[in-house]
C-alpha cells in the first residue's frame, strides 16, 4: 500500500488534530499484511471511525479504488482534514462529524477501521471533542473502544471485518473475550514495540 501525500497539511493544524504517528502507520501496515484477504472480500463500503488526519482511510481508498470510503470524527477539524487528505490523494470519500458510528444505518460496512484513543487516563479526561479526544482513553484506555465494540455487531456487514489497534495496557485479551461473546473470532495481524508501547492490530470477523 502507498503512503498518502500529506504535503497539503499545514503543521499548525496538528495542534487540533492527531498527527499521523507510529500507531497510524502500524494500522496501515496491518491492512497491507492482510491485503490478500481484503482483495477477496472486495469491499464496497469502508468506514474509519475517528479518522483524525484521514491518512489511514485514504491509504485504504488508494489501495481499493472500487470501494467508497467514509469516516467519522467527533472533532470537526479532524473531519475537514480527513477530507482534504482524501482529496489530495484522489480518493472518493465523505466524512461526517459524529460520535463513533451512532448515526449510520445497520449492516452497511464491509470494513470498519479504528485507531482509538488508547492511552490510559482518568475517566474524566476522555469524552471531549478536541485533540484530547484523539488519545485519552480513560480506564484501561478502553472507555471509548468498549463503546464502539457494542455497536460493531449491528453496523458491520455480515461478511465484514473490523480492524482495531490496541496497546498491551488495554488488555486485548478482554477485548477478544467481549467480541467472542458477540460471535466474532479474532486474529492478531501485527504487533510492534514503539518506545514504551507494545502496539498491536486485531482483526475480528463473524465466526
Amino acid at each position, binding site marked *: 500500500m502507498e503512503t498518502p501525500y500529506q504535503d497539503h497539511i499545514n503543521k499548525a493544524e496538528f495542534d487540533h488534530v492527531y498527527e499521523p504517528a507510529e500507531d497510524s502507520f502500524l494500522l496501515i501496515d496491518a491492512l497491507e499484511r492482510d491485503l490478500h484477504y481484503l482483495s477477496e472480500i472486495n469491499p*464496497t*463500503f469502508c468506514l474509519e471511525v475517528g479518522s483524525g488526519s484521514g491518512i489511514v482511510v485514504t491509504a485504504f481508498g488508494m489501495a481499493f*479504488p*472500487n*470501494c*467508497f470510503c*467514509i469516516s467519522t470524527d*467527533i472533532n*470537526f477539524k479532524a*473531519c*475537514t482534514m480527513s*477530507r482534504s487528505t482524501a482529496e489530495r490523494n484522489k480518493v*472518493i470519500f*465523505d*466524512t*461526517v*462529524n*459524529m*460520535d463513533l458510528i*451512532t*448515526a*449510520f*444505518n445497520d449492516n*452497511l460496512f464491509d470494513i470498519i477501521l479504528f485507531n482509538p484513543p488508547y492511552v490510559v487516563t482518568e475517566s474524566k479526561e476522555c469524552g471531549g*471533542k478536541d485533540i484530547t479526544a484523539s488519545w485519552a482513553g480513560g480506564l484501561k484506555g478502553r472507555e471509548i473502544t468498549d463503546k464502539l465494540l457494542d455497536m460493531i455487531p449491528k453496523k458491520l456487514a455480515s461478511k465484514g471485518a473490523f480492524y482495531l489497534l490496541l496497546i498491551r495496557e488495554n488488555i486485548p485479551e478482554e477485548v477478544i473475550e467481549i467480541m467472542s461473546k458477540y460471535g466474532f473470532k479474532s486474529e492478531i495481524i501485527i504487533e510492534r514495540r514503539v518506545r514504551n508501547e507494545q502496539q498491536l492490530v486485531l482483526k475480528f470477523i463473524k465466526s
Partner: protein
Amino acid sequence: MKLITHNMLTSKCIKGVLTGFPLAINATDIKIKEVDFNSEFITRVIPKLDWEVLWCAANSIGHSDGLPKTIEPKFEEDEEFLKKAHHVLLEIEVEEGHLTCPESGRQFPISKGIPNMLLTEAEVQ
C-alpha cells in the same frame, strides 16, 4: 455531503425515535464536484442503496432530472443510467444546510459540506 452518504444516515439514536430514516435535506448551498466515472464501482454500489430514498433526496434538492424512480433489472448494461447515478451519488455536494429527523424534527447542521450528527447526552437513547 454526498447523497450516497445521506443514504446511510439515520437519527434513530435519538431517544424515542424509531427509524429516523430518511433524514430530510434542506440545502442552502450545493456544489457540483467532478469525480472520475467508474462503472464497476457504481454498479456495485446501487444494489446496496435505498434507491427510492436516493431519488426523493435528489428530487428534494432539485437534482432528479432524468433519474428514474426505480431501477431496471439490467441497469448495469445501461451506461447512460450509470452515469446519471454516478452524478447524483458522488458529484452533488450539499455544502451548507441542514438535515431533519423525520420523527422528532431535530435538525442537524451541514457546514463546509460536513453534517454534524452529534447529540447531547440527554438526547441519546
